[in-house]
């Protein structure tokens, strides 16, 4: 019960996981989705106002997370909205307010598995789109050779991800979304040590492909 919304901000840690996004609205993974100054105000808002504020703050990162775990773009907004409506019911019924960010990701994650299981699919990237995506990657190496190498690395990551188990992918995606091991464990209903070993194995596989 303690902490309330402040729990959302508790886990800001420096990391390499969220250093890359420059094109679409800043760091998403570990970004503090709600400004710290807003926390106190949120506590005094009505549940509706709080939900709207949380929706505005968390929607971009949740949206990105769902896209990355393979929810089809047509279903993403439905999952997002249903998750926030459930959060509203949760708050109205006096539910626990610890780590609401974790709560909303957990519900969205479960919804994407349960409700949309039939329609869920990995985003298929056509060769043309893939070429476009590769070119859209921020260019930190000006030479053509450098760009080719960079694109090649990204291709290898794609192949490396395909080798991972679902659990490893889930742990990686939640880590990229900025969650601590304990929170990832709570969202996926697994122990912290399992999270750590899954991340270790996932990164090892990706690095093997990358080498």
């Amino acid at each position, binding site marked *: 019960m303690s902490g309330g919304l402040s729990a959302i901000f508790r886990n800001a840690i420096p990391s*390499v996981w969220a250093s*890359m996004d420059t094109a679409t609205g800043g760091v998403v993974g570990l970004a503090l989705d709600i400004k710290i100054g807003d926390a106190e105000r949120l506590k005094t808002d009505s549940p*509706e106002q709080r939900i709207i504020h949380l929706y505005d703050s968390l929607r971009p990162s949740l949206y990105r997370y769902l896209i990355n775990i393979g929810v089809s773009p047509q279903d993403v907004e439905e999952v997002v909205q249903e998750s926030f409506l459930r959060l509203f019911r949760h708050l109205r019924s006096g539910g626990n307010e610890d780590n609401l960010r974790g709560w909303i990701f957990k519900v969205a994650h479960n919804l994407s598995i349960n409700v949309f299981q039939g329609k869920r699919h990995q985003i298929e990237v056509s060769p043309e789109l893939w070429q476009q995506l590769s070119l859209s990657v921020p260019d930190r190496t000006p030479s053509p050779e450098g760009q080719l190498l960079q694109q090649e690395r990204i291709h290898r990551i794609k192949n490396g991800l395909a080798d991972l188990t679902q659990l490893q992918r889930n742990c990686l995606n939640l880590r990229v979304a900025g969650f601590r091991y304990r929170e990832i464990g709570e969202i996926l209903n697994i122990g912290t040590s399992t999270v*750590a070993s899954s991340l270790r194995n996932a990164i090892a596989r990706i690095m093997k492909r990358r080498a």
Partner: protein
Amino acid sequence: MRKNRYNSSWRARTGPFSGGHLTDEDLIRSLDGELSSKETAEADAHILSCWSCRGRRQAIEEGIGDLVEYQNAIATPYLPPPLHDRAIFLARLDALAAGLGRPSRFVTMLRETIRMLGIHPLNRVAQVAGILLLVTSGLALYFLQTTRIVSADELLNRATVSDMNTLKAVAEPVVIQRLRVHVGRQLLTRTIYRDIAHNRITSRTDVSGLGKELVRAAYLRSSLDWNTPLDAKTYRSWRSRHADGQDTVIQHESGEVTLQTKLTAGPVAEADLTVRTSDYHAIAERYQLADHSEIEIAELSYDVIPLAALHENVFAPLPEPSLPRFPVAVLPEPMSPNDAGLANAQVQAEMTLHKLGGDLGEEIEIKIRPEREIVVEGVVTDESRKQQVQAELQKIAGVRMHILTIAEAAQQPSRGSGAALRPGASAQTMSASLPLLDSELNARFPDNDQRMAYVNQALSLAQLASARAWALYRLADRHPSQDVARLSDPSRRELQALLIDHISVLREDVSLLQNQLAQVLSRSSNTPAANTAVSARNNAAVSESQRDWRIRIHRVHSSIETIHEATATLLTSSPINNTSNVEEIEINLRTSLTEMQTELQDLDQEVRKGNLK
């Protein structure tokens, strides 16, 4: 536990990188801040002295960097999330909140207290004792305050006193009241801000101008107060004007009391005001009108905050007592400009009305009289709106105004077709059949409230698109090519901006409506035949004259009206003799919407390029 494990083992652990090196997991934990401070210090110290571990850590960092980069590349095409979905979410949240009702103050207070207890760590015994004390006090308070039977006057007195006490607790109080108003097919949410000390009121609604005006018109026809709905004092004032009223007080098991007033004559046949017995705060109101339609108002929230907490722009500025008020009669006499001057002034007037939102369904027209003057005439809702429109228009030379409020227009017996109130809007025929898509609506939205919210939203979007298409239609009619040729460059650019603004928003509205309707339109209406029809129409050779933006706007207007009509036919109760083929309407609707996307895109490009002709 973890600390012991790491302290004792990580440095000495052997494995793929034996010889006292950090394992991959240790390195990743270190990067992720998952080691204790002591472990982190030791790991950092080791990395400083060990090139092997430093190199591996850098490789892990680069791998993570590539992974994040890959995820960004995948998600970027879909970000940022579409803005229009937010409006849908707010509507769904609103419907859910309305369905759940407002939690009682006691429960809210209890939860807040529990939350506060959680913030300040008390021991468990103190927490339990505190909660028990609160529950006991709450129950005692509840039973002490509950009044079994009160008279109508007593009930209204208590409600008025209760509201006054709430206001007294705040310096310069501003009441923020959120209401759900239901009139016939129209459902809207109003948020009213009342500055009690300075007697200022402002409000906003969540539906189009037309929907709002229909509801407001129903209010005015029934001689009800639009500015202070759901207010015990207003109800008492209304009741006192009807000496023949018969009151009944009904106590509900849910802890609410309803005062019911029945009248034998007048526009209102029966009225209810429901208050909570816990604090006598009014939470619902209903008016049954003489034409059998109903106005229902339910409170979604009620807050009192100090004026200082609000942004200064929420209310109109307080009047300066020293400044004289200019009567309308002393408005500057318009000049008699030449043709070009008239055309430029007309564009200015159009832009001014556009900025005021007066070109979307409000009954205001701009005309050029033979006496070489521009006249802006029409009917607006109230005096404040009239003042606002006049204040802006009088800045334009050569414009004469004839603006009336609804009340003023009602006193003019032969006003004719320009009247603001559209008769019969709420007097729906009683012999109506179910909507043509009734079964699809029921299947998609089993919950009645959700269904109603969906239909209202779709209709509202169609109405908005229609109002926008009408605005474009009027611009096209008022600006033939010879008129545009006379415009100065700034005026031509202003007209161009006006057109672009309307077209852009209309494109968005059509897209939203298409998405909204896709939820209930049958898949079969998306036939190859329909798509072929669209494709054929789009590929048809378009002559030069057909590319003229005015002709395109006329086509757009005609199609939007068809879409509006088809939407209403499919989603609302239709007259019994409607024998239209549902499938045909659906196919036509889908076709028109798809066609409209292309047509508006072309029109947008046409208007944006080069000089407007």
